[in-house]
């Protein structure tokens, strides 16, 4: 069976994913320099890890679908 490719929808979703990935990369680099530069970086690192975790769960794992259902 041949399936039609939804190129427009695919591009839009891909752009969103890449934007999220760029944010994750930026936060990781910030995390590294915060850890290297600050004497007690604990609170900042917790905040940055939480932000990265939220981005992954919200945009990559689609946690909201558990409560909404459907694709």
């Amino acid at each position, binding site marked *: *069976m041949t*399936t*039609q*490719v*939804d*190129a427009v*929808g*695919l591009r839009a*979703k*891909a752009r969103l*994913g*890449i934007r*999220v*990935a760029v944010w*994750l*990369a930026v936060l*990781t680099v910030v*995390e*590294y320099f*915060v*850890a*290297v530069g600050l004497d007690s*970086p*604990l609170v900042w*690192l917790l905040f*940055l*890890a939480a932000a*990265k*975790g939220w981005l*992954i*769960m919200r*945009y*990559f*794992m*689609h*946690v909201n*679908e*558990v409560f909404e*259902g*459907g*694709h």
Partner: protein
Amino acid sequence: MALSAGAAHERAEAMWRPRANRLGLWLFFASEAFLFAAFISARFVTSGTDKPDALNQPLALAITVVLLASSISAYLAETSIAHGDRKGLIRYLSITIFLGLVFLVGVVFEFREAVEYFPPGTIYGSNFVALIGLHGFHVFTGIVALAVALGLGKKGHFEPDDYWGVEGVVKYWHFVDLAWVIIYPTLYLF
């Protein structure tokens, strides 16, 4: 129009099955999170926020970036099949598997350095080896699952309205990435 009992069952199944699958997977993630939380808390309880100077920070940062990159390729694989692009599914699943293997090679180098500078006999060393080993095993099982999805995808399985096999595996891969987002600062940065 009245539906036959079989058709009604199929319709209900199609409506509720994806939700039940997702809920089941998230409950599994919750149980996994408790396991990782136990190991992470053990690191802080036994050695506070102390860490050895010999930690290879550039290597840890590099494999973190590799794992994050594998998450975007996994996302693109799922997005591809959701929009009917089978070639994209195969391409991005292959990239994800490759990046996962690169991450594992990095982990092997980490292990070698750990044994040399802070062996498992030390408090930090035992926490390090346990956490990295636990996560590394999850990465390995994720790669196996991704390879199974890749094989099925190549054989023509999965369609835009039926790709739970890909979705489940990709979500698991993101969970492995999420665990590393916590483990990386726990072992290297605090």
